[in-house]
């Protein structure tokens, strides 16, 4: 199935892009995220605990990044496996564009799910994914505010960028896994 979505964040594009470098922010913002591991600059793995209706499982996901064009966007391919609960896999294209003072994050995803997740959770996936996306963006915005820095400076602390090199990929990888697994919005 295919889906598209966008979200406005009240921060400049560079700030949003850079904030995505902060692994703690991603982990905090992604509902159910338990673990993030960087395998290489373009490959990541993550663990998420997901509940879709009656299907509860820990999903292990791998994400590969390509077409990285900081701070404008990239493509990611991800797949997540939840053992007996099923799997999700797919590809997402992500772009960041200026919108006045803020930034619009747009994504298009082509994803498939299988196993119990498709069989039982299908009808619930939309709602769950929407809820997760909302939770993520709320938490993400809160994180930016809590940093307390003016939007333009959010990117400044080098420590944040140093924490996880290529972390912007990490964010989309993580979100991508979630999106992909959950067959987000409007399939």
């Amino acid at each position, binding site marked *: 199935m295919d889906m598209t979505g966008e979200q406005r964040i009240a921060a400049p594009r560079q700030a949003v892009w850079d904030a995505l470098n902060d692994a703690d922010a991603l982990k905090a913002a992604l509902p159910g995220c338990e673990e993030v591991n960087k395998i290489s600059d373009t490959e990541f793995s993550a663990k998420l605990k997901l509940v879709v209706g009656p299907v509860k499982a820990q999903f292990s996901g791998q994400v590969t990044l390509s077409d990285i064009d900081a701070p404008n966007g990239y493509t990611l391919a991800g797949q997540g496996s939840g053992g007996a609960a099923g*799997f999700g896999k797919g590809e997402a294209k992500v772009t960041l564009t200026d919108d006045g003072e803020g930034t619009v994050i747009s994504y298009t995803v082509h994803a*498939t799910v299988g196993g119990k997740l498709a069989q*039982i959770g*299908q009808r619930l996936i939309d709602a769950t994914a929407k809820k997760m996306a909302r939770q993520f963006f709320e938490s993400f915005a809160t994180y930016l505010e809590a940093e307390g820095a003016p939007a333009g400076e959010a990117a400044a602390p080098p420590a944040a960028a140093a924490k996880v090199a290529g972390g912007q990929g990490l964010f989309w990888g993580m979100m991508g896994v979630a999106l992909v697994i959950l067959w987000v919005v409007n399939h």
Partner: protein
Amino acid sequence: MEAFTEKFGIGQPVRRKEDQRLLIGGGVYTDDINIEGQVHLAFLRAPYAHARINHIDTTAAAQAPGVLAVFTGRDLEKDGVGRVESNINLKQLDGTPIFRTQRLALPTDKVRFAGEPVAMVVAETAFQAADAVELIIFDADQLPAVVTARAAGAQGAAVLHDELPDNCALHWQNDTPDAYDAVAAKAHKIVTIALTNNRVVPVPMEPKCCIAEMDPGTGRLTIYAPFQGGRRIQGAVADLLFDGERDKVRHVSDNTGGGFGTRSKIYPEIIAVCYAAKSLGRTVKWLGDRSETFVSDLHGRDQVNSAQLAFDADGKILGYRLETLVNIGAWVTENGARLAIDGGGRIVGGAYDIPVLYYSCRNMMTNTVSTDTYRGAGRPEANYIVERLMEKAAHELGIDPQELRRRNFIKTFPYTTQMGMKVDCGDFAACMDMALANSDWAGFGARAQRSQAGGKLRGIGLASFLEGAGGRPEETMRVQIQEDGSVNIICGTFSHGQGHGTVYSQIVSEKMGVPFTAIDLIQGDTDTAPAGASGTYGSRSSQMGGVAIIRACDIIIEKGKVIAGHLLQADTAEVTFEAGTFSARGGSVTMAEVAKAAHDTRRLPDGLQPGLDETYHYTRDGGRDDQSFPNGCHICEVEVDPETGAVEMLAYSAADDCGTVLNPLIVHGQVHGGVAQGIGQALCEHTVYDEETGQLLTGSFMDYGMPRAHHLSHMAAEFNPIPSTNNELGVKGAGEAGCCGAPPAFVNAVLDALSSLGVKHLDMPLTPNNIWRAIHQAKAEGETH
């Protein structure tokens, strides 16, 4: 004596003796059974519809708490577990035999449908087994999947079995098309139709489950599982796991929560559970959950039909051409690839005289769970096609639909169909007249006007149908009169809703004058089922088992006469038997007295074996071609809301000829059940696989539309019994007739309702969405013209 035969004999509306126990929760289903020391099994099911298996890593699962063993297909292969193969031996016109699959219970090479079991864990508790399944790493490369019969035949479609590059397991044809083409060439009118017969999930109330109890002392395995007749599962497990030694395997089932054909088949899960029990020397219990039942129970229907009838200028059928694609799923199962041929083919032209037939049936393999017998098994599909076609033909020919049917009904009997079936009797016009009267067809116009005043569209639809019932042409029954005069009927047929305990007792009560309440049914155990007994499927138990009972009773009565003669000091030839009493020379003894004497060797004539215990193996004279042919006419009345597309069923009149009615209460129930199942398919049941991924999207009751009480109206069932000449009870199987009549009657009614809006075609299921779309499409087409 007469009092109870009047009340409990053949033809009486006797209440089912089974019901009290079932209604108070006294039934014993497989999950109610727990055996000391049992361990639990859970399956890992493939998340992919089509994938090549690289590796199944069971290391972590094997070390999980409580786990006794983890098995994959490799283990089964190593231990020489046999593979399930269909015994269908149909051939293509050029002599090529059907393609048969050899299925190992857990596959080693590929998975071919989403939900196919690929590994299993046995643990001390069910939760431990389920948790350990999560730890199995299933490494497989996904392959493109194909889920519809049409797509499976397309160029470049995914191939399920390497040996079958075109995915067509059997392209069967009754003949070349030449004869049909010749009559079509001179036809006054040719009417065509293209239909989809939607796939349904059988969903019996009891999910698939199994307990395999291993007796370490004897090495004997007892299987407790819902099943429609244990001989088959006994034979299969013996063949696959015990080198064919049947006495090593016993099957027991007290109650089975719904069969519908889907519980008559050998499932890989059952073989796998038995294998685990045998390997571990333990009793292993597996309870499949509802979602496992959805993905892995054999489904029903799923055909694409292209049909045409050639008519002469008088509206008489000259020939019938039918091309069918059947989606038989991922494996060639027991009956899937023959349903449309041996099942639907029996009565392919319905109630009509078809002088020339061309029938082509392609059985296509797809990445879906296989389809196989489901209530009606090919006959509802065949009747649906011809009834939709007749209705359309009537409109195109400008002949009243009832009149067109009357002109073409089979009227002389016996009638041999183009498929070689000998239809012995019937009066299709009489059934139609009965249904027309009962439905007050004549008053429909006034009712339609009332509906119109309320903003609704009312429609009425009719379908005549012909069924072919009986299945396997042999069955064995044992009738045993005990010392106290009570009777046991010991059988291998299996009542899972049919009321055999009641109907068989009525037959024995009537035949031998024994009190109805003194008769018990002993079923569901291969240790007691007589040799040659089969099972319950194909609407056969009364016409096969019932006749075997009659004949066993006859032998008992003959022996009883010998004993009675001895007791009455008369020659055997002088003894007469009537209503439970043997009489000779002015004296008489009851069956109970004779039974008592039969068990007392001092009171028996010299050389006569004690007991009144006879087993009869009945073989139907004409074999498979000489079945019984239930038939009827069903009329349905509906109201459609043109704004929403919602259909309300308002009335249903069934006029059925199911031969001699042994118990009208039970036969009414059979008709109601069959109609409800047919309406379910026509109205809301629909099985959807994702065409890209092959995932089952209608895999739960949230997404699969089961019919509910509010979807149905009152159903009036009446009988026009014309006794079958193919068995001495005169019965014609009643269990599957309802779902032959209901789908076409219902769909024809909705088409009638929508005719004023220009809707000319609909495919099942008639959900509000589908009807709304059809209304708007017709509107758009009307505007462009």
